[in-house]
């Protein structure tokens, strides 16, 4: 795909390059069309950091662009690489959630400041009865990621090397991965009525409704990683991962009523879940086994 794109760009710009060549240098001659390198492989003596090896990669993931709760996931990936460009494995981590700035602000201004436990008659407290707990917002209603497990296929389309400060050189590669993901999460329990309209025992204005329920969300995950190999069996890298799925991060009643369900209906249920393009970056070390490395011709 990349090759086709590069060719398309080059072909489209060839005319421009030719015009440019009239007044500048013969830059185009740098392209190796003939000569002793014609037909030769792009890289010789390539170190195969992955082919036929197991890779264990412990790391830490940091969620990005969170609205209320950020998640830090210590975890690891275990992958067996059938070839240098194809591997199969599993990645997982356990979530440690902590408040984003908005959650703290809501706790301070909208919950502690209003003191609705003692002033339930105030206008603000009446209007927010279905949406705000009188206790701790993080414990009572905000969604949180607890764990993630993902079997995944890894493809390595790009191999190369990196010069750091023109003095340190390290093998690098870029991998892309995809697979199903199983996500253990907590979000505000259903109250008022479920998504089928069946009445539930607790109304959402009841403070007892402010509790978290666990469920497992199933979705797909995909991403891209950049890996460095300073030695034959130890490396490190960075990874961007996307986990798009719908969940209720706030515990609010945002949907279910009005046209197309775009307005509150005094119930909290699956209709209040919104699709989030959940994303995270991972920093990891990697260890390849066996430790001996192969090279190409």
């Amino acid at each position, binding site marked *: 795909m*990349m*090759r086709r794109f*590069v*060719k398309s*760009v*080059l*072909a489209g*710009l*060839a*005319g421009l*390059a*030719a*015009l*440019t*060549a*009239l007044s*500048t*240098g*013969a*830059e*185009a*001659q*740098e*392209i190796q*069309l003939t*000569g*002793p390198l014609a037909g030769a*492989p*792009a*890289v010789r003596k*390539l170190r195969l950091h992955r082919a036929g090896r197991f890779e264990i990669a412990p790391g830490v993931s940091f969620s990005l662009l969170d*609205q209320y709760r950020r998640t830090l996931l210590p975890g690891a990936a275990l992958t067996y690489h059938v070839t240098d*460009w194809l591997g199969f494995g599993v990645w997982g981590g356990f979530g440690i959630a902590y408040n984003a700035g*908005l959650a703290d*602000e809501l706790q301070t*201004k*909208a919950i502690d400041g209003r003191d609705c436990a003692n002033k339930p008659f105030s206008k*603000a407290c009446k*209007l*927010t009865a279905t*949406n*705000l707990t009188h206790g701790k917002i993080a414990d009572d209603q905000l969604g949180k990621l607890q764990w993630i497990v993902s079997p995944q296929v890894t493809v390595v*389309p*790009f*191999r*190369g*090397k*990196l*010069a*750091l400060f*023109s003095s340190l*050189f390290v093998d*690098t*590669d*870029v991998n892309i991965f995809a697979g199903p993901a199983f996500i253990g999460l907590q979000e505000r329990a259903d109250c008022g009525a479920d998504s089928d309209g069946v009445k539930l025992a607790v109304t959402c204005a009841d403070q007892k409704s402010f509790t978290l329920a666990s469920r497992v969300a199933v979705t797909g995950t995909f991403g891209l990683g950049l890996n460095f190999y300073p030695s034959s069996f130890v490396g490190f890298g960075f990874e961007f991962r996307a986990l798009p799925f719908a969940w209720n991060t*706030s515990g*609010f*009643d*945002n949907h279910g009523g009005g046209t197309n369900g775009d307005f*509150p209906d005094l119930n909290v249920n699956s209709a209040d879940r919104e699709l989030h393009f959940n994303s995270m970056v991972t920093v990891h070390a990697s260890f390849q086994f066996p430790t001996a490395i192969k090279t190409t011709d």
Partner: protein
Amino acid sequence: MAMKQARVGLLVAAALVAMPVTALAQPKAAQPKAQAGKNPKDTSKDKPAAAPAAGEAKEVNLEGADAPKDGSTTPVGGDAAAPGGDGSGLGDICVIDPTACPTIDMDKAANRDMHVQMYAVQQIYALRNHRFEVNPYFGITMNDQFVAHPGPGLAVNWYITNVLAIGVNGNFYAGLNSNSAFNLQTSRAARVGEPITEYQWNANANFSYIPAYGKFSGLGDFIFHYDFFVLGGVGAISTRPIAVVDPDNRTFTFKPKVSFHVGGGLRIFFNRWLAATLEVSDYLFFDELENPSIALGTDPKTSKPLAQDSSTWLDPGGASFTNNVQAQLGLSVFLPFSWEYRLPK
């Protein structure tokens, strides 16, 4: 395939036209390999047609020649009769053009000192030294959940060295700010008015540094080059609050504020003058926010409601430190398009 042929045709045509003007590639090809690294000075420009003196080595492409496998001495050229007169090997050129007949002592050549050191990056693919970089891009907000600040931008850099540049960049946001659905939902559910602002433009003077560069083999078939860069600078950003607490009385105007700029990114080269650029930049500044309270009463001097007094519209708590983090995706064009390497390797 046809596209490739068209490209080749265009390039050949361009080369033919450009050859009378300049021929960058030719002097490099005329450099003796045996002396590479010892004496990089190229004298072939001055005496392109001069015949080699007796015993003086002249370049020969050993990779393309049929070198003897037994390692025996193969005197070629010189004052002796042209070898290979049988129509094969290096002798052919002696028949066609005696002045260009290669002279090389194969034993001597085989025993010469070898400079076997290999460089990780033999020759930087896209030199940046003393070139301009023009980088149009489009930026999107990364950290503002309430208001999106997308907008086009332009960066221009001048590379003082191959890894250090000075430059300017600017973003244009006016008319493109948009409140998010999340802002509406949060305000509606929690009955809180989150102070929000919109941006008009920003401009910065920057230093850029490239700590890392390298190349990738793509699918084992083609090679492309890339680099990582970091940058920092100072500039200004024009912003104003969006009135959400008392929109009936409050109207804000844009005001520029001093901003600082830090960022970093990845540049992937399509060729020696065109690259795709992905950058994450953080513009840091002290922003003025709307006062969450509405002043009550009237001004005794003017008898106007204090709510209409613009001095009461801004948050009395002072300016708020703000990070405007944005992802920027664009193209980089390096000018001039071509250059000459100072050294052949």
